[in-house]
């Protein structure tokens, strides 16, 4: 018994202890780590010590312009960092005699241009709108077919589409197959058209246009069902 009590107490304590999960913004920042090496070209001497000390040999010295040494112009070399090979150890910053490399507290992803795919966010039209749209479409279909259903002797409007005006009892639900088929096809058509419009248009189709399109479909349906 006591173990259950202990377990329950542990659960309560954990529940009150606050959550371990950090919000996404906190998780993706890089405050404490060593960061990314960044060159300050002004201070760089072009000595190449960083390239020689780099453990994965991710620094290559490249010629980048000229500088004057002893009255003559000589090509100036500068380190070029390959951020995909860099292990972010900070040796280059430590050994640089001119302190031209500093470790910036950014994440390696920020250092690499175009690391993220270009296909980023294309937001969908919100689910709520889509849902309401289809709901209204189905309700309209339902109502319209109720209006159009054959009137029976017992009521002015049909309670169920296609039941011929006969009151609904479990024993006597009869569906007229042909009308059911028409209904089903026409509903499918309506849904399919809505979906196609959503897929094709995405956010560029405002809600109103989609609603109008749905109404047009139903009007066509009305014409189809007119007998």
């Amino acid at each position, binding site marked *: 018994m006591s173990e259950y009590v202990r377990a329950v107490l542990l659960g309560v304590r954990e529940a009150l202890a606050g959550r371990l*999960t950090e919000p996404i913004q906190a998780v*993706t920042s890089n405050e404490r780590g060593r960061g990314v090496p960044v060159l300050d070209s002004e201070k760089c001497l072009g000595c190449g010590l960083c390239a020689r000390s780099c453990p*994965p040999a991710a620094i290559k010295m490249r010629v980048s312009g000229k500088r004057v040494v002893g009255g003559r112009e000589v090509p100036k070399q500068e380190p070029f960092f390959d951020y995909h090979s860099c292990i972010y150890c900070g040796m280059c910053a430590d050994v640089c005699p001119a302190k031209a490399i500093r470790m910036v507290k950014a994440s390696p992803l920020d250092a690499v241009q175009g690391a993220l795919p270009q296909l980023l966010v294309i937001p969908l039209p919100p689910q709520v709108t889509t849902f309401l749209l289809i709901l209204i479409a189905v309700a309209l279909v339902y109502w319209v077919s109720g209006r159009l259903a054959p009137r029976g002797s017992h009521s002015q409007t049909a309670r169920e589409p296609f039941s011929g005006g006969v009151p609904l009892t479990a024993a006597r639900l009869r569906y007229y197959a042909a009308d059911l088929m028409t209904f089903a096809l026409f509903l499918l058509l309506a849904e399919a058209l809505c979906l196609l419009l959503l897929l094709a248009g995405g956010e560029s189709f405002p809600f109103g246009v989609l609603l109008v399109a749905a109404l047009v479909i139903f009007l066509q349906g009305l014409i189809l069902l007119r007998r």
Partner: protein
Amino acid sequence: MPAGPLGYRRRSLWVYHFNSGGCNGCDIEFVAALTPRYDLERLGVQLVPSPRHADVLVVTGPITRMVMDALRTVYDQMPEPKLVIAFGTCACSGGIFADCYNIVGGADKVVPVNVKIPGCPARPGMLVKVLAKLYGVRERGQGAG
């Protein structure tokens, strides 16, 4: 059609982890991304045991000669549409082992890579960031929360 290869699946990406011969640093950071603090599952991301269920292949470690073939096989087994993320400096380019004799190189020598996340090891937050961007989380706000 929404742009991008993942279509609607990006709201619940299933991830398969492939350790291609690394030191385990990036593997442990990847597994740490699934643990409570980073919690990839809030984005609908799930670790799956089979590549046939996966949308995203996360490769860690430099590709050694013995796993090269397995990597290609696993990649081929994944159904379309699929993404490959090279997690860690070694998977991006071979890293500090690039000139070792049993290493082929980075993951892009064997399979086409969509996203490269450098870092030694790459931080779990970076994986969360990439997957969050793919999911559609804007800079403010948390998406599904």
